[in-house]
């Protein structure tokens, strides 16, 4: 009979997994994926945005499986994403073709096409609504029907082809648009990000970034750690964006492309003043734009993204929010939570090595 090493890892893991499963169901209630989809839209949108996988039902499933933990839900979605073959890129899409549900400008009172508040919690008084404790299906149905029947006295707007606020700035000569860059983006999920980054790499990193991290860094940027001035939101729009994939046989013919569906996105264009020096050395001010685009309705994150896009495009030396490595390498949810949580793993060997080093130094006394 030989010596048998103590075994326990496998069993301990099985028990731990069972305990976690039990925690989710021990109260005997089944959380319906449809309930999450219907009642937790912002959470579903955040998970889709951070996992960069647009699938509402899978996001809701991930939220159910993760018992509502954002980082776990995003993790589940990203891992699932790794098993999917990536076959096509959609055609370049202009957000001008967005079917707008909400559109506001904090820069101009009277924007061409009009402002549209849509649905937002911005002006809701944040009182806890105790009536919700006893909300019934019947009441809910009735309230919904009343809302649908209500006739609002609203001006007729063409929600499908609204002009962009930024076009107005350009007409005034206050903004010079860049030539359109419609070449295929550097896909950061297909090759790793390289520094200095291309703008497409930056925008992808930011839009996949953890909502809290992007918001915090964006906040730091406008609080004095980067952006020299307060940005103005030129336009924030939320709505459905139609997507097309071109027919491989006629790649250049737009009308031959396949419509594959619409996704809800949030887009923000922030205006920031910059100095422009002409060829005679004369300095004037003009506007620059910080851009943000995310899956779903993720307004705060998208605004913060636009701030960070601007601070990376117009870096100010010495500020962390202008440092592309600092920002882009740290905002990812799966990467940051993964590495922080790995500290829970045993580090016996490295700690033994550290212990040895410290003991040797103590033994040897201090340097001459």
């Amino acid at each position, binding site marked *: *009979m*030989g*010596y*048998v*090493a*103590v*075994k*326990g*890892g*496998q069993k*301990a*893991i099985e028990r731990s997994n069972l305990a976690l499963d039990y925690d989710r169901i021990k109260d005997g209630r089944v959380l319906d994926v449809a309930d999450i989809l219907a009642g937790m839209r912002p959470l579903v949108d955040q998970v889709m945005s951070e996992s960069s996988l647009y699938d509402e039902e899978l996001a809701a499933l991930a939220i159910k499986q993760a018992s509502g933990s954002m980082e776990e839900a995003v*993790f*589940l979605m*990203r*891992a699932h*994403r*790794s*098993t*999917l*073959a990536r076959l096509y890129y959609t055609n370049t899409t202009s957000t001008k073709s967005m079917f707008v549900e909400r559109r506001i400008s904090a820069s101009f009172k009277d924007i061409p096409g009009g402002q549209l508040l849509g649905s937002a919690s911005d002006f809701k008084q944040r009182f806890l609504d105790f009536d919700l404790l006893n909300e019934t299906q019947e009441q809910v149905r009735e309230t919904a029907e009343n809302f649908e029947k209500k006739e609002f006295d609203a001006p007729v707007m063409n929600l499908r082809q609204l002009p962009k606020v930024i076009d107005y700035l350009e007409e005034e000569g206050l903004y010079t648009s860049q030539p359109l860059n419609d070449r295929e983006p550097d896909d*950061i*999920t*297909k*090759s*790793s*990000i*390289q*520094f*200095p980054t291309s703008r497409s790499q930056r925008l992808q990193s930011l839009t996949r970034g953890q909502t809290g991290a992007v918001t915090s860094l964006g906040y730091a940027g406008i609080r004095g750690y980067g952006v020299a001035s307060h940005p103005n939101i030129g336009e924030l729009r939320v709505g459905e964006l139609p997507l097309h994939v071109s027919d491989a046989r006629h790649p250049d013919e737009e009308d031959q492309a396949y419509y594959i569906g619409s996704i809800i996105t949030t887009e923000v264009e922030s205006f920031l003043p910059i100095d422009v020096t002409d060829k005679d050395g004369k300095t004037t001010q003009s506007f620059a734009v910080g851009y943000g685009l995310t899956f779903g309705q993720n307004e705060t994150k998208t605004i913060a993204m636009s701030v960070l896009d601007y601070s990376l495009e117009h870096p100010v030396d010495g500020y962390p929010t202008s440092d592309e*490595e600092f920002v882009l*390498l740290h905002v990812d949810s*799966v*990467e940051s*939570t*993964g*590495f*922080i*949580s*790995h500290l829970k*793993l*045993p*580090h*016996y*060997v*490295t700690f*033994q*090595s*550290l*212990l*040895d*080093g*410290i003991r*040797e*130094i103590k033994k*040897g*006394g*201090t*340097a*001459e």
Partner: protein
Amino acid sequence: MNYQGNYAFLDENSKKEIRRTILKAVAIPGYQVPFASRELPIARGWGTGGLQVSLSLVGEEDVVKVIDQGSDESVNAVNIKKMITDTTGVDTTIHTIESTIIQSRHRIPEVPLTEEQILVLQVPLPEPLRLIEPSERKTKEMHAYGEYSVSWLHIFEQIVRYGKASMQSDYPVIVNGHYLMAPSPIPRFDNPKMNQNEGLILLGAGREKKIYAVPPYTDVVSIDFEDYPFETESFSGAACRMTGLTDVFLDELQDEKTGESYYLTNDQSYMLEVLNEQQNTVTGGGTHE
């Protein structure tokens, strides 16, 4: 849960891409090759770099061993091994000599590798210059120019401050006379094992998206000074309580009854093999499985 996904989880294109990265890494020993690291069902920082290398290489004939902190039974090792077997159905072993692919965290086994074997090391921080220079762009330049004086300066400063180089695990090495390389957080004790190793050593960093390699029979030298030579951890006077071994990396443990510390061989499968060997010699009994 019954696994119904792709063999070895990742889709075939991803695996092919990782194998290409590995080939490049082998061709340029010690150079960190960037790759599009995939997200796995195991957390970033928990061995996803090593796992992507293993999953891209593992074939039906392979026999896999997974080690964490010298143990095949550590929870992380068990978890990773389960992920590999669940998605491939390959055989596993705890015996180093029987394995074809060994994925390890923090240790190189005490049993020397052979030409038939691949050691995959999980790497949290692949950049040996990172503690001195936080910018990836700058460290890339430093590698390109072979500008490593800062690393020697780092050791020099430690000697001035402490009278000794206080480097711990993950002690940097020069590979093939060229690239400075983080050997992953293996103890200094394992650094010399990399030099002229018979097996292929692949190092995968999932979160940092880098793969690098030490091909068989490659020079691997720990950086040091002539008058302050590289030193491994010292276990002078200590021996494994079970086997009496002194030439292995030891774990320091506390005897709960006496409060005294004692030592055990860290590489547990090796300790098991030595113990079985010793017991057979003593009792003259049959061989173990």
